[in-house]
């Protein structure tokens, strides 16, 4: 397929997933009425969908923001995953590689255990703390990885492992001290879109935009890094600088996603790898396709999460891991056969 064809197919898949997710849910809304209601919000269109005010609230305040947020979170995780795998030349790299997950977990736990009552505030403390925690974790890993002198990606990854282990230890300690917070912390770690609203969407959009633009602009340079840092230097590309910018942007994307949805695993691994299998390894196509593919994948995963046991919810992390883990094994097998 051509480049345009692949992108077109990706966007069509995203549109299809979004439409299915808006039409289906634990509460049955007549599909025709939903489409009329949606069309009615377009300028110069005036329709009467026949939905009750309660159903309108379900559609506009619960279902739609959840679909939009699921798409944003999925896009950011897949984008960050593709970027990390590119700059670290490591197929197992994922958005949580450099301590973002552990940092966010600690931030969220601290906010839950010691945070003041924020019910009157315009924004919750929890997403802010998780966001700050994720950024802190990665900055610490980066500082540690570079202070060793060697600027290899391996040092950086190992520094990420060390930082993650340390932050997780602190988080577990805090959790033990305040056992009454276990339930909420656990719920957060499992990942959730259950309580998604427009507020979370608004919170996330600016970071999503900045990271997307930054990584899209650097996608050709990530391709150059594939030949190795020294060779890249001979081509006039400063590998460490590119890596810093891309990691910073990917971290921003990850932190924003984690802040509003907790830790949702596997999206950052399986989406970019599937796209590599279909469209090849070049980041020119991989990055934009990861964006739309990640969005479509998480929207569908969330659709399963909220309908398969309806009216009960399944944790979304269970869905992504259920499909993600076997897939991950498959990718490993293929990679070994190629090597």
């Amino acid at each position, binding site marked *: 397929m051509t480049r345009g064809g692949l992108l077109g197919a990706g966007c069509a898949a995203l549109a299809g997933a979004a439409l299915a997710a808006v039409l289906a849910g634990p509460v049955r809304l007549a599909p025709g009425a939903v489409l009329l209601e949606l069309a009615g919000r377009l300028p110069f269109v005036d329709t009467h969908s026949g939905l009750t005010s309660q159903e309108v609230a379900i559609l506009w305040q619960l279902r739609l923001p959840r679909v939009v947020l699921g798409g944003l979170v999925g896009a950011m995780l897949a984008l960050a995953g593709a970027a990390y795998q590119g700059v670290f030349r490591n197929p197992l790299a994922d958005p949580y590689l450099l301590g973002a997950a552990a940092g966010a977990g600690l931030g969220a736990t601290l906010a839950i255990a010691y945070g003041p009552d924020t019910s009157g505030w315009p924004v919750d403390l929890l997403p802010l703390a998780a966001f700050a925690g994720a950024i802190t974790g990665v900055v610490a890993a980066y500082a540690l990885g570079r202070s060793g002198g060697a600027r290899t990606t391996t040092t950086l990854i190992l520094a990420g492992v060390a930082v993650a282990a340390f932050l997780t230890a602190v988080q577990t300690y805090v959790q033990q001290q305040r056992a009454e917070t276990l339930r909420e912390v656990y719920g957060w770690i499992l990942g959730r879109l259950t309580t998604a609203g427009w507020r979370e969407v608004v919170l996330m959009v600016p970071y999503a935009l900045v990271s997307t633009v930054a990584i899209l602009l650097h996608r050709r340079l990530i391709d150059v890094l594939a030949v190795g840092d020294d060779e890249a230097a001979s081509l006039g590309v400063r590998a460490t600088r590119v890596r810093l910018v891309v990691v910073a942007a990917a971290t921003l994307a990850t932190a924003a996603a984690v802040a509003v949805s907790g830790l949702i695993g596997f999206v950052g691994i399986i989406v970019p790898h599937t796209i590599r299998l279909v469209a090849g390894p070049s980041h020119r196509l991989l990055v934009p396709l990861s964006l739309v593919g990640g969005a479509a994948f998480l929207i569908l995963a969330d659709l399963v999460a909220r309908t398969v046991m*309806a009216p009960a919810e399944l944790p979304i992390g269970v869905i992504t891991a259920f499909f993600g883990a076997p897939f991950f094994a498959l990718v490993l097998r293929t990679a070994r056969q190629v090597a």
Partner: protein
Amino acid sequence: MRRPLLPLLALVLALVAGACGQDGTTTGAAASEPKRIVSLSPTATEMLFAIGAGDQVVAVDSNSNYPAEAPKTDLSAYQPNIEAIAGYKPDLVVYSDDPGELKAGLDKLSIPVLHQPAATDLDDSYAQLGQLGQATGHADEAGQLAATMRAEIDKIAAAARPERPLTYYHELDKNLYTATSKTFIGQLYDQLGMKNIADAADKDGSGYPQLSAEYVIKADPDLIFLADTKCCGQSARTVAARDGWNELTAVRTGGVVELDDDVASRWGPRVVDFLKTVAAKVQTAEAVRS
């Protein structure tokens, strides 16, 4: 060499007599009854104090915050430390959950234990009260308390029997985890003839499903009970501020009830207080409806 033993024996006897004299506060307690109880269960703590065995309790876990005179320590019931528990030299340890090695460890030290898991119904509660009464020498008080609870609950239930059952949603945390009517707390609502909106959602039969917000809005319960006010800072105000929730009958008619998380999650004597709170709200909601 024999004679010097006699004064020593006399001294020991005097000490024992003195100790027995001090014991006069716990009437009827035989010498074999535990004097150094450690409770790792907040419900058991409440029961022990309610049946007059409070004097025999030397330490309670960090979550046993009621009654105020309970000797609260930093002992953890989630991560019990056998050495720390043994440090109180207990002659009975009451617990509700064993996360692993608690019973095995105490057995090794020959410390008697009493396991009282979360009650599945009120009869379970009464049975546990009876067990504690037997174990501590307060069987009569325990029997009386159970009888009083039964009578009060029957009275509350008889007074509150609405013609059309009120529907309710009992919130355990803000991710919409809830309890169905077959759980202990759900059966208490049943006593008042109420209908749980979560029953349809309990596909795996755990009794504690997570609901989707869409479903709660559609079900539009008459009353919303928040058992996540202390743990998670929820209130009538935060519920009203949730997306789409301002449409709900309960939110518009003042039917969002802020419970005490502790009272709503224990199966001790305070279930009567819980039922009184709920019954009062049922009356208000009835008045609103008619």
